[in-house]
């Protein structure tokens, strides 16, 4: 159980890393939202799931309830995170920010 | 019942404020009666408390029933029981005279005004009673927060000066909090008496000295001692006159009390005066405050601003009196807290009445105001004479104590500053009386028509502020004189017990 939890957490951290680097690397606001919105919520899912597993490892009732609470956070984040992403994107569109388009491509892809 | 007096003094205004906020939505007329009842209850309880203290000595009230270092405790001794009476009396008098002006200035927000007013009073009363260093901060904040709001709703520059007051006040309160934090770090306690017990065991300590300086500088900002007085003049000038006649007599005085409490109870008086080499610098600051406040007051062309600068000078009196470090100076300072509350209330209320009628507080527009508003101007004269320090009024006696304290301490600079300030006050007020005494003479219209003369006659007939403003005003003026007559009594029966015995 602990091992599985650790694997989950490491995966989650990996996703988080991707999210952060993505926020830095992507060229414009719109494309930055892709890593920010997806990778972060995925990372959160993974880490929280891992930690829920770790918490519930001794299978006592309070521990399981705590784990359920952690999962409640996951559910909550999965409802709110896309909405927040969408809200920021919508704000960007309404603020008149045009999307970045790729510079001219070299030949055909 | 008697043992609950300390809490009644505070809880009644607090609950009345809540009730006003609630009931005001249903009936707009309930505000003033409720507030007056609350103020009256508070006053009665505080007088009862004073009598109790006089007969029994120091009282202690444990909130929540917890013993001192663990719970919060109220400590009432001779010093604060006297000031409590003064504060609740000033607040009540001002409240009685507020109706007309409040209805004119705040219209839809009367309920909120009275609620804030009572919360402000409750905060100040709490500061006076508490024996807990952190509780002092909380009460300080409630008094200041309501004060910012009350000041901010004035006209013209009021919001800006309210905001400036907020910035300065927050820095001051935060510095005080930081100082208390340092004390807590070194002693582990928040109760004033408990800290005082622990301090001698750790005393040669830089941290404690810094804590002392931080607490003091926080309170200095709050009380507007000279170089830190920047927020005060504008805040008092542009606030509505009911508010300035509430805030001006009370805030600075209560802060001076808080300074005294910090010096006296938390750090011992010996430590405050002798161990830290602050005595001379602060005395010089006080002198600078007196001189600069007077000079600035001389330069003003507006009545309320002039009075505000006089408040700055008065702060110098009291701070200097405490830091003289002898019995006469301290008694004078404590007496001056009470007297100054009364006379500042008197002049600010008179100014409020005048501004209410003339709609303009430039000195030049006050011509003929003696003729039109005799009662208000008489009160102003009494207050002014008291600020100058003319014998039957109370200002004379406290100034006398302060001067003799300065003589005894051998600090002639302070004495000179006091005399200088009295001189300037004389000039100021006699200029005011002179302007007020002469009728407005129409310049450039020497030969006018009959109709205009009629109009002038009409304008110079009595146009006094409404009765509910005048009654408390007259009461205050009487109070100023009565306090003067009984000041020897007050010193002998109360104040001399308030000064620690170590002071020779």
């Amino acid at each position, binding site marked *: 159980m602990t091992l599985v939890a650790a694997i989950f957490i490491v995966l989650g951290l990996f996703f988080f890393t*991707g999210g952060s680097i993505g926020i830095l690397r992507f060229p414009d606001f719109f494309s930055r939202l892709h890593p920010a919105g*997806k990778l972060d919520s*995925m990372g959160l899912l993974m880490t929280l799931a891992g930690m829920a597993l770790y918490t519930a490892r001794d299978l006592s009732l309070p521990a399981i309830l705590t784990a359920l609470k952690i999962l*409640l956070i996951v559910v909550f984040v999965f409802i709110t995170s896309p909405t927040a992403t969408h809200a920021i*994107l919508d704000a960007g569109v309404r603020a008149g920010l045009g999307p970045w388009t790729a*510079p001219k491509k070299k030949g055909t892809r | 019942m008697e043992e609950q007096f300390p809490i009644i003094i505070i809880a009644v205004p607090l609950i009345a404020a809540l009730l006003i906020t609630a009931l005001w939505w249903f009936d707009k007329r309930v505000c003033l009666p409720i507030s007056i009842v609350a103020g009256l209850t508070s006053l009665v309880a505080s007088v009862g408390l004073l009598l109790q203290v006089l007969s029994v000595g120091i009282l202690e009230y444990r909130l929540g029933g917890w013993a001192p270092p663990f719970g919060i405790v109220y400590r009432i001794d001779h010093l604060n029981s006297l000031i409590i009476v003064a504060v609740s009396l000033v607040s009540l008098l001002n409240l009685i005279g507020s109706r007309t002006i409040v209805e004119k200035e705040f219209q839809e927000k009367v309920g909120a005004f009275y609620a804030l007013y009572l919360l402000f009073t409750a905060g100040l009363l709490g500061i006076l009673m508490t024996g807990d260093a952190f509780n002092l901060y909380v009460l300080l904040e409630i008094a200041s927060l309501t004060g910012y709001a009350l000041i901010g709703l004035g006209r013209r520059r009021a919001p800006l000066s309210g905001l400036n007051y907020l910035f300065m006040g927050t820095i001051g309160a935060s510095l005080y909090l930081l100082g208390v934090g340092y004390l807590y770090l070194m002693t582990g306690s928040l109760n004033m008496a408990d800290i005082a017990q622990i301090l001698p065991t750790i005393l040669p300590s830089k941290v404690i000295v810094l804590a002392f300086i931080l607490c003091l500088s926080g309170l200095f900002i709050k009380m507007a001692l000279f170089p830190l007085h920047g927020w005060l003049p504008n805040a008092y000038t542009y606030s509505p006159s009911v508010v300035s006649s509430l805030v001006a007599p009370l805030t600075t005085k209560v802060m001076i009390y808080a300074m005294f409490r910090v010096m006296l109870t938390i750090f011992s008086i010996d430590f405050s005066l002798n161990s830290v080499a602050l005595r001379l610098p602060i005395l010089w600051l006080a002198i600078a405050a007196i001189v600069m406040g007077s000079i600035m007051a001389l330069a003003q062309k507006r009545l309320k601003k002039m009075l505000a600068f006089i408040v700055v000078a008065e702060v110098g009196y009291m701070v200097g009196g405490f830091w003289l470090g002898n019995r006469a100076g301290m008694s004078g300072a404590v007496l001056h807290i009470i007297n100054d509350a009364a006379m500042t209330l008197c002049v600010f209320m008179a100014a409020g009445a005048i501004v209410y009628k003339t709609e303009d507080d430039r000195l030049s527009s006050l011509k003929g105001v003696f003729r039109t508003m005799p009662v208000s101007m008489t009160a102003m004269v009494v207050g002014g004479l008291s600020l100058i320090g003319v014998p039957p009024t109370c200002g004379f006696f406290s100034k006398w104590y302060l001067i003799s304290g300065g003589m005894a301490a051998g600090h002639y600079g302070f004495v000179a500053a006091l005399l200088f300030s009295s001189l300037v006050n004389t000039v100021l007020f006699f200029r005011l009386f002179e302007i007020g005494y002469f009728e407005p003479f129409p310049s450039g219209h020497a030969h006018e028509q009959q109709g205009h003369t009629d109009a002038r006659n009409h304008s110079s007939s009595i146009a006094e502020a409404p009765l509910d403003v005048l009654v408390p005003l007259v009461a205050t003026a009487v109070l100023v004189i009565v306090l003067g007559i009984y000041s020897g009594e007050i010193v002998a029966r109360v104040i001399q017990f308030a000064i620690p015995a170590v002071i020779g």
Partner: protein
Amino acid sequence: MSVDNLSSTDTSFGKAKPSAVQSRRAKKIVPFCLTFIICFATWFVLSGRFDFFHIALGIIACTIVASLSGSILISRRGLENLPGQWLGFILYIPWLLYQVLLANIHVMYLVFHPRMIELIDPRIISFKSKLKKPMSLFIFANSITLTPGTITVFVSITGEYTVHVIDEKSGNSLPGEMEERVARLMGE
């Protein structure tokens, strides 16, 4: 201005139908009870204490929440076929998670690709969906946001989607399978 600008909170307007008082009360009671039950289940997870005192507190709290916002949580239109929807939703989640994982791997690939700039080609596309219920629109929109390379920009209440896609490939698959699944899930 088209109809799509109307706010969808169906409680506040819409023609007041002359309906019997009793049915209106029933309409209020059903959301209340549902909210109460959902809240109470959540309370047990949150509280973790099963003594009488805390359960009583829970009942009071759930009553307050249900009476305050029962009408916010439960839309009156969405009451039909509720158990089926919940079952469908539970079945939908694993598929969604799988898609999310795919999406993440896709974005990860983009993020760590050294020539990322050349791979992406952001653009905004729009399409019309056949979905109608606000709930299904919502689920579909959030699913779009969570799945590969796409984020919903705006959804009008008639089902016109504006979507930002990060490369062309991601945009081609819309609306696609997901819409079908959502439609099946919500019974449209």
